[in-house]
């Protein structure tokens, strides 16, 4: 494709977007989102659509249904959806769109106040001002703002063996889904091992590296950071736990230990919490994390 054709296409697209009201005449995005009334599209059906279960086997007239059931159990992937001619069925498409919407929601939604109250977590935040900045400038998600630093110094127990923090990351949905199970399991596990735990709290607009800012401030040995994973189409509820031993801004990624895929369909949150307690204990014993820890316990 030559550059002239590309320019023509771009010009046409911009013209179309202005016509639809997405862009104003200068080419800037409009504040008011236009209703999506594309010419010739049918009226939007106001009735809610009931989605078919993802567990459903959509293959018509299967030769060996038992075999398909076994395959269905083996993976959460979009297999055995059936087809209509050479295309997917409407139900498959709707399921796909719904899962995609859930993934988008997980990134953009704020954690409800009531959730933080229930979990007895207070909130601090990074220097990030809003979600757009959070997404555009990952570096900013690794530093607390000044007000937050002051709050932590005032409210938190100093120099605990273990500091637990909860961070939104890319999925507040996953935080809501898992923290209520994983946190008490971890704390109980640490208590049975005689390990002291600091005051947990929630960090808004945080990235994994926020632990490097917090650990030196509170003087903990091991920091456990629960953070929402980038949501996928299988689940928006998947959460990771990143752990490090006395991290600072000089810490590199190889020095962190991670347990990923904590969700109901992956590593169950309760058992993950218990397992994390064992990992924390190892980090305290070996005074290390990440690859170094893995080498030492080999």
């Amino acid at each position, binding site marked *: 494709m030559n550059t002239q054709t590309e320019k023509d296409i771009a010009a046409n697209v911009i013209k179309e977007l202005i016509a639809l009201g997405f862009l104003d005449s200068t080419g800037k995005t409009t504040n008011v989102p236009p209703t999506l009334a594309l010419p010739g599209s049918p009226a939007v059906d106001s009735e809610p659509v009931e989605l078919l279960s993802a567990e459903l086997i959509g293959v018509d007239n299967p030769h060996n249904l038992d075999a398909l059931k076994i395959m269905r159990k083996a993976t959460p992937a979009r297999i055995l959806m059936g087809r209509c001619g050479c295309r997917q069925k409407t139900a498959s498409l709707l399921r796909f769109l719904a899962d995609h919407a859930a993934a988008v929601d997980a990134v953009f939604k704020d954690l409800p106040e009531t959730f933080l109250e229930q979990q007895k977590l207070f909130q601090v935040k990074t220097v990030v001002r809003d979600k757009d900045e959070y997404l555009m400038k990952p570096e900013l998600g690794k530093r607390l703002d000044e007000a937050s630093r002051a709050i932590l110094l005032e409210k938190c127990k100093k120099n605990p063996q273990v500091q637990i923090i909860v961070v939104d990351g890319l999925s507040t949905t996953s935080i809501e889904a898992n923290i209520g199970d994983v946190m008490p399991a971890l704390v109980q596990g640490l208590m049975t091992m005689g390990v002291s735990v600091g005051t947990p709290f929630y960090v808004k607009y945080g990235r994994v590296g926020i632990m490097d800012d917090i650990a030196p401030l509170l003087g903990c040995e091991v920091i456990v950071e629960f953070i929402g994973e980038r949501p996928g189409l299988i689940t928006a509820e998947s959460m990771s736990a990143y752990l490090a031993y006395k991290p600072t801004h000089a810490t590199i990624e190889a020095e962190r230990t991670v*347990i990923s895929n904590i969700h109901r369909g992956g590593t169950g949150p*309760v058992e993950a919490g218990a397992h994390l307690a064992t990992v924390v204990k190892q980090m305290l014993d070996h005074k290390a994390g990440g690859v170094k820890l893995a080498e030492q*316990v080999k």
Partner: protein
Amino acid sequence: MADFHTSIIRSIGIDIGTTTTQFVLSRLTVKNMAPGTLVPRMEITDKDVIYRSKIHFTPIATNNRIDAAGLLALLHDEFEEAGVRPGEIDTGAVIITGETAKKENARAISAQVASLAGDFVVATAGGKLESIIAGKGSGAADYSRNYLCTVANIDIGGGTANIGIFHHGSAIDSCCINVGGRLLQVDPESVRIIAISQPMAAILAGMDLALSVNQRVEFADLDRICQVMATIIGECLGGNSLSELAQQLLMTEPLRHDYQIEAVMISGGVADYVYGDQGWPDPNHGLRHGDIGPLLGREIARLLPAEGHNLIRPTETIRATVIGAGARTVDVSGSTIMVDDARLPLKNIPVALPFVEAFPADSEAIREAVTRSIGSFFAEHELAPLAIGVPGSGYRSFADVQALATGLSQGLAPLHNAGFPLIVIVEADLAKVLGQSLRARNPAAAIICIDQLQVKEGDYIDIGRSIAGGTVVPVVIKSLIFETRQV
């Protein structure tokens, strides 16, 4: 991640059968199969047979007993040949099968051989269990899993034929028939009868055929006897009503036949003559082992396809049971568990299932159910170690687990007070959190809390010391021990 290494388990299988005794030594590799960032998931990845003993005749003393001294001497020599010492064997199983299991001292011998072989080698016997072990060793279980079908494995030895039914890899049914290749012993030279076993006497009576020891027997009669035995196997496999003789020779409940058998596999000593070796230079050659095993094999090869069965080849014939016992009885638990190694290994712990399905969310209901279970197992002052099985595989919350821990702690208090460890086997991946929850409530108790295992009420479980850096324990779940009806 951290706490797991590849481990090697050395496993032994010893099969003391009606006719032959043999053992195999296997190397089971236990490896973490989860990607690096996930919670470890240890699995048995490789099963290599590293030593196969010679196939010996089982030493039998005269008075309906196994010749214990002879048997131990034989095993001792074979161990030496294999270059292993009992202390180097991690696990495995001794199985006494067929007619030998009926001997008066079978149980004692089985236990004696197990302890000779190693710390965590288990003693088993019983027709139903044997059927399942043989089907796992012959390849029938794998075939049914790989081809998503239902396979019947018939392990035909000297004294018994064990039918195990496998559906998609799992054993779903089994039965044991007192029919085998050495029930009648015949001298190959003179064609005179050397010995007639009790079940053979029943077969002969059913045929109206009068034979006695030292009598010369016609080949035609031997063929008829084998036809009758093959027919009985066919009846048990077929699902129509059983003849009187078949009912008499059946040592267990008959098969349920609530499934469709799609393929049939034969293992055991007789199998070698089902799948080949039938072109004998002279009729006496069929009697070269001093019994009618080869004749029976030939008859089965003719009869089963004629009855419409799809006969497929096993991966093991005469060694199916011993390989099944050695490499296929031991399993590993889930990888996040809590065990007190000082209290392991534990052997022959009965399993109670206080809850039929998922456990209740209320600790009081859990305590009551556990108390009831203990009461049904033991009289008040005669407590013994008991494992509590917790079924259900779905998601459970932290609150649910706390209720379970509280209910179990209270319910199991009598066992704890009697000095026994708290043993819990959970189906869902919850053992570590449950173990820690139990620990928080009982700081001084010995806790054995393992998961990702399916147990049934009345099973027995053996639990070995932890391996792979403490991440998993080897376990042997024994259903249906010594349940075979004695003919």
